[in-house]
């Protein structure tokens, strides 16, 4: 490798955006690594837990005319409930809590890149369970509202021999949902670490604009898309 290259890949190394192992635990001969993803997830969850405890304490003695912190909390809840209500219509009621929760969780996970953390959603081990949760909800609602006969009829939609393709289509939903979120956030963090790693000589101030795009804009859009698609699929499963 040429040591005198300007943009040398040598002093960069992929470690700067890969998942790091922080420390390992040995349980029964198996080595369990606690990685940077666990740490960042813990930070995000703790932040949200503290916020929700404070919000709960505040809402217990809520004023008739809201101001300050109560205003913010009411605004967030109204915004999320409105989003779910406008997408799911009459099916919105049972899902407002769930969708609101995953929305705030994914949003904070994506935004944690701004604080120099490695976003937890840039780990496929975080986004895939989210996709599986969506898949479970879809399947449960399908069987509950269309009954077994309806599900089988839906799988044999145009012709009965279409069944394997329909099955693949159903199982592709969680994979594509989770890969979309994962790849978007990962590409953002890779771009940022490329900027900081390869252009470290000139990386002053202007990477802030990239942070606004990759962490805030892209993160918010992907959060919205994930929740929107989850809601659309569930509504679909409950109606047809």
């Amino acid at each position, binding site marked *: 490798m040429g040591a005198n290259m300007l943009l040398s890949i040598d002093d960069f190394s*992929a470690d700067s955006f*890969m998942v790091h192992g922080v420390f390992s635990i040995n349980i029964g001969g198996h080595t369990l690594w606690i990685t940077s993803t666990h740490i960042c997830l813990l930070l995000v969850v703790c932040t949200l837990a503290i916020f929700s405890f404070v919000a709960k304490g505040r809402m217990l003695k809520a004023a008739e005319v809201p101001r300050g912190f109560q205003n913010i909390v009411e605004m967030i809840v109204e915004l999320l409930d409105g989003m779910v209500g406008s997408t799911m219509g009459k099916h919105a009621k049972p899902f407002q809590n769930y969708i609101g929760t995953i929305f705030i969780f994914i949003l904070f996970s994506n935004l944690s890149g701004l604080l120099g953390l490695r976003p937890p959603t840039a780990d496929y081990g975080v986004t895939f369970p989210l996709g599986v949760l969506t898949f479970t909800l879809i399947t449960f609602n399908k069987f509950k509202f269309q009954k077994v006969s309806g599900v089988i009829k839906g799988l044999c939609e145009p012709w009965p021999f279409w069944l394997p393709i329909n099955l693949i289509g159903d199982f592709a939903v969680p994979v*594509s949902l989770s*890969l*979309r979120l994962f*790849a*978007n956030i*990962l*590409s953002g963090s*890779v771009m940022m670490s490329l900027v900081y790693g390869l252009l470290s000589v000139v990386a002053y101030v202007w990477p802030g604009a990239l942070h606004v795009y990759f962490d805030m804009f892209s993160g918010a*859009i*992907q959060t*919205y*898309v994930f929740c*929107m*698609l989850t809601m659309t699929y569930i509504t679909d499963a409950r109606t047809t």
Partner: protein
Amino acid sequence: MFDQNFIYGCSAIGAGLAVIAGIGPGVGQGIAAGHAAAAVGRNPGAKGDVTSTMLLGQAVAETTGLYGLLVAMLLMFVKPFKAA
């Protein structure tokens, strides 16, 4: 048969080829944005709805490009191919 450096080089070429997948989403997102702009021009009152629908569609259309990116990243950084 081949040494490791040859395989790394070929992996890098493959990664470059894989990112060509970005052409499709680029064209598709451009078309979506163009139609959204036309829709806003016809009906400026529906700007909010048009914008959110456009962003949702674009984000879904982006998926295929991201698959190409993932393949490129796997080839470049995970290095799945080893010399025999």
